[in-house]
């Protein structure tokens, strides 16, 4: 168990050290940095898709999983954003965020029992990784990066609470199937995104 945990943190450290150049542009609502952050998630599918997958996955696994992800993911995202603002990494590793999306979608579609620590670790990984990407983009912008990051965190909290809550309350078998189908769609979207990222010009 300890060896597995060490391997996980080692993987995290490697991934964080080779963060790709930021692609997600943060939107400008005109209402200030907090609201820019609040709406960011809802207009950035690259960030939204893995969050939907993780929230539904946590919800399907039960209220305990959902509650943990609800608090862990936004905090990890905020920590990642803060780190991203300060570090502003320039190294690239294309495809990693897409692979993360595909993995989360596949776990959702499979709907298999998962260890609690694994799901929480996924939330930390996702939050840190996407947070750093956001932070790196924020560092380039003129507005208060920290306030935008706080807005993103609040948006995440709302989104995860809604989705995980809904998924946790699923009782009818066909509704569970519908959630799993959503996972398969996320995998499909992720695979196509991967194809786009490796596209050969005609």
């Amino acid at each position: 168990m300890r060896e597995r945990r060490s391997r996980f943190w080692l993987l995290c450290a490697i991934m964080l050290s080779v963060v790709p150049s930021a692609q997600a542009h943060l939107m400008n609502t005109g209402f200030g940095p907090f609201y820019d952050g609040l709406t960011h998630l809802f207009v950035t599918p690259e960030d939204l898709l893995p969050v939907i997958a993780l929230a539904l996955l946590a919800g399907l696994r039960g209220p305990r999983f959902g509650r943990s992800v609800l608090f862990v993911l936004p905090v990890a995202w905020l920590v990642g954003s803060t780190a991203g603002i300060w570090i502003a990494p320039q190294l690239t590793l294309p495809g990693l965020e897409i692979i993360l999306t595909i993995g989360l979608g596949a776990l959702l579609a499979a709907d298999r029992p998962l260890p609690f620590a694994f799901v929480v670790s996924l939330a930390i990984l996702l939050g840190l990784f996407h947070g750093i990407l956001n932070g790196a983009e924020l560092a380039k912008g003129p507005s208060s990066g920290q306030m935008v990051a706080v807005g993103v965190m609040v948006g995440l909290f709302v989104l995860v609470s809604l989705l995980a809550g809904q998924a946790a309350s699923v009782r009818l078998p066909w509704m569970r199937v519908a959630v799993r189908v959503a996972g398969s769609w996320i995998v499909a979207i992720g695979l196509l995104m991967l194809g786009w990222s490796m596209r050969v010009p005609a």
Partner: protein
Amino acid sequence: MRHFKTDTTGNSVGFANTVRYTLVSLLLLLYPLTAFAHKRGGEAIGFASGFEHPISGLDHILAMVAVGLWGAQLGAPAIWVLPVVFPMVMALGGMMGLMGIKLPGIELCIALSAVALGFAVCTEARPKLWVAGMIVGFFAIAHGHAHGTELPMGANGVLYSIGFVIATGLLHATGIGIGLIHRWSAGRITLRLAGAVVAMGGVFFLWKVFSGDAA
């Protein structure tokens, strides 16, 4: 001078409509278009063009609806396994197409998919679940690859992909929705007839492939 029709109370119906259309037109002019700054010449610019792509070809529509119909005929768990398998494997095929990996006989496979799936619906074929999954997956690769190679260069692959997958899923859902008539005896006959129509469509596309008319 233009005359407008009047209703029973003597009010001008045509004038009211004109005002309404003008208001709608003005509102549309106010709609911010800054997000669509890219030229719209058939490029993959976002959700709408991605959504449009799977429903723009009858061969694709027939096969995808047939997957839903067959799933509904087979019942649980195939009713949801097949529509889950198809988009994922299709996306894999699409990824291969986007990456420039060549596959032979794609158009032939697409035409055959309508024939085979239509035949399966028509005869109410009941293979084992994994066999049905393999059949659907095999044809899904061909459909996905064709889409992947046809995709024009565009600005937003993510939104395009979302639109594409949702449209595909909705086509399957349409098939499943229609397939729910399977619970009635008349519905079962209708479904088998629908399968025959899909198979005949497949034969038509097969003929087009062999005659060199395939798009």
